């Protein structure tokens, strides 16, 4: 079986409702700290079925004020590739196997806020999981802030094979990028994700009252009775009327902040690069000067019939500066793209809502 599945790439991810709920619970509990955990399940005909999950142990952060919050977040973000957590994970999976849960690790999940999940941590984690031979792992990203807007935001990602190869070599120099034609759009591959319910769960969902009662009800005698009437249906789970919410300012503000932050990062990276170019230029100028001097000296020595000095000594004398990795820039670019797409989607739905409100308020125009 393994021989069969080896070459078929993963095409889709199917997540059990249980896993969705567990991830949501864990992420929203820890918000705004990043929450990470492990996924278990199995792979079938190119579809990765995620059937259970468990959170990684929390790292003790001594206090929860501003600074520590950041460090706790960082620690949590690095958790999936932490040695201690690998042990924890294996132990947990061993126990889960005893109660017939599909006991294969199929990846990890992380929480995010407004799509700010594309960073070095995420890449390293996924690389950690994906570098194994014949692996079948995904990273699930649950966006807590966006989900509070009404629609669940849960996405599945994998690193692209080209990126894996490049990251293994660890060389993200201009030259390499040029040679491989690698672009920032190629870092992550998003897989289509579906949610799957078990039969029992479907049965449970049908039991939950969500729709208006079908049969004729007697009229309430007064207003108070109407409010207390047990037959008054609760707002249904589906469709979620939260998505009709009109508040747009917090969302836009946050996205703008994040975008500005990304630009700042980009700027820093470019400055780094410029600095590198300048120092490279300086060093090269020095080397040329030295070489010319040596050449002049040699011709003088040749004229004086003296033995020539070696001309490749500069390699020992001068050290060329290391080119900074362009990985950070690539990730940052990918992140900006992510934000831009997010804003696109948001403005599409918000302008719809705004026009609806307008025509509601100004009928006949």
């Amino acid at each position: 079986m393994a021989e069969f599945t080896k070459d078929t790439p993963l095409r889709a991810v199917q997540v059990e409702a249980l896993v969705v709920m567990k991830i949501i619970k864990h992420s929203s509990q820890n918000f705004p700290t990043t929450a990470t955990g492990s996924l278990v399940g199995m792979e079938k005909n190119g579809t990765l079925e995620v059937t259970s999950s468990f959170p990684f142990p929390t790292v003790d952060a001594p206090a929860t004020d501003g600074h520590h919050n950041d460090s706790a977040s960082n620690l949590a973000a690095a958790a999936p590739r932490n040695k201690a957590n690998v042990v924890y994970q294996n132990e947990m999976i061993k126990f889960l196997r005893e109660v017939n849960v599909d006991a294969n690790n199929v990846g990890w999940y992380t929480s995010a806020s407004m799509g700010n999940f594309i960073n070095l941590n995420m890449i390293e984690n996924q690389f950690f999981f994906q570098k194994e031979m014949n692996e079948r792992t995904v990273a699930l990203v649950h966006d807590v802030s966006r989900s509070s807007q009404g629609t669940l935001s849960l996405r599945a990602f994998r690193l692209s094979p080209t990126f894996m190869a490049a990251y293994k070599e660890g060389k993200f120099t201009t030259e390499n990028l040029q040679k491989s034609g690698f672009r920032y759009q190629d870092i992550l591959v998003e897989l289509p994700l579906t949610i799957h319910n078990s039969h029992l769960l479907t049965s449970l969902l049908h039991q939950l009252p969500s729709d208006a009662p079908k049969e004729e009800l007697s009229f309430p005698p007064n207003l108070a009775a109407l409010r207390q009437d047990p037959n008054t249906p609760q707002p249904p789970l589906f469709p979620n009327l939260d998505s009709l919410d009109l508040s747009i300012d917090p969302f836009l503000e946050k996205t703008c902040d994040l975008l500005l932050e990304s630009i700042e990062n980009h700027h820093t990276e470019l400055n780094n690069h410029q600095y590198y170019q300048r120092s490279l230029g300086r060093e090269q100028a020095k080397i040329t000067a030295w070489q010319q001097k040596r050449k002049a000296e040699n011709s003088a020595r040749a004229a004086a019939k003296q033995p020539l000095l070696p001309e490749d000594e500069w390699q020992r004398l001068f050290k060329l500066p290391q080119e900074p990795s362009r990985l950070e820039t690539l990730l940052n670019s990918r992140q900006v793209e992510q934000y831009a797409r997010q804003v696109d989607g948001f403005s599409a739905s918000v302008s719809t809502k705004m026009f609806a409100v307008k025509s509601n308020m100004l009928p006949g125009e």
Partner: protein
Amino acid sequence: MAEKDSFLHLARPLGPAPVGAQPSTAPLGVVIQPQAIFSILDHSLRRPADQDRVIGTLLGVRSEDGTEIEIRNCYAVPHTETAEQVEVDMDYQKQMLALHLRANPREVLVGWYATSSELNTFSALIQNFYGQQGDGTFPHPAVHLTVSTVPGQEIESRTYISAPIGVTAERAADSCLFIPVPHELKYGEADKSGLELISSAKDREDRSQGIITDLEALERAVTHVLDMLDRVSKYVGDVLDEEATPSSALGQFLMNALSLAPKVDAADIERDFNNHIQDVLVVSYLANTIRTQIDLSNRLATAALTLGTGDALSGETGGKDGQKGGGGERRGKGRQQRTQEA
């Protein structure tokens, strides 16, 4: 599913138990979060073929006075049951509890669940195990949650706490009195979006649902609201045509709802609307501009080397840089303007 039964608790004589080690039998309310139920149902599906019921441990938080218990999580515990005896893997239970506590120290042991409504001698034994001193929930009562998972029947859940019963100490060890306590299923704000998607799959043949976009969700919500409005306006129309029975309570309710609509000047609306829509569009436009710029910058950075020497490259990126900064400032300005307007 959490039907509203009424409960009456009476003080009663307690069975023989060492003095001073009496577990509390005070009534309490139990709140169950959906992921716990989901997890129990999942476990029930994965039970060994020859077993009728499976059991597991409930984790959750207890309110300070112990009268309110919120079941937040649970995990399965392997056990075997025959006509004569029951065997629970206590070692497994202990280690799993330790693992869960490491991940979430706030969720403590509160009780156990079984996937059948039946209460028998074994239930009493297990209940006493979970409620014991030391590893158990003592001095708080252990909660027992039963979720019936009989195919073809409604899923029924009940919660109990227990009181010791029996004439002698030996008898008390394997018997107990299960006292039903009220419980309800509650979901939080954050769970809403997930539950929406999950329950949207309930009427589908394949029981699965892809992730929907914001726009699709909006469309569905709008359609739903339109349907409800249609229903109400049909009723109102029928009343006006004297085809349906009028109700003053309903009329009053609709009146109240309608009076919530704000009275605002058309010009104000027009102005606010234009301001806001401009903000949104500007942010969207700028975000896309930035995206293009970054893309361009990346392309230039890798393409420049083919055009000339390293100097040309640095000049190129420098030029880009200025542009970028400009872009950033523009963005900043746009944002400040927007916040002022808002």
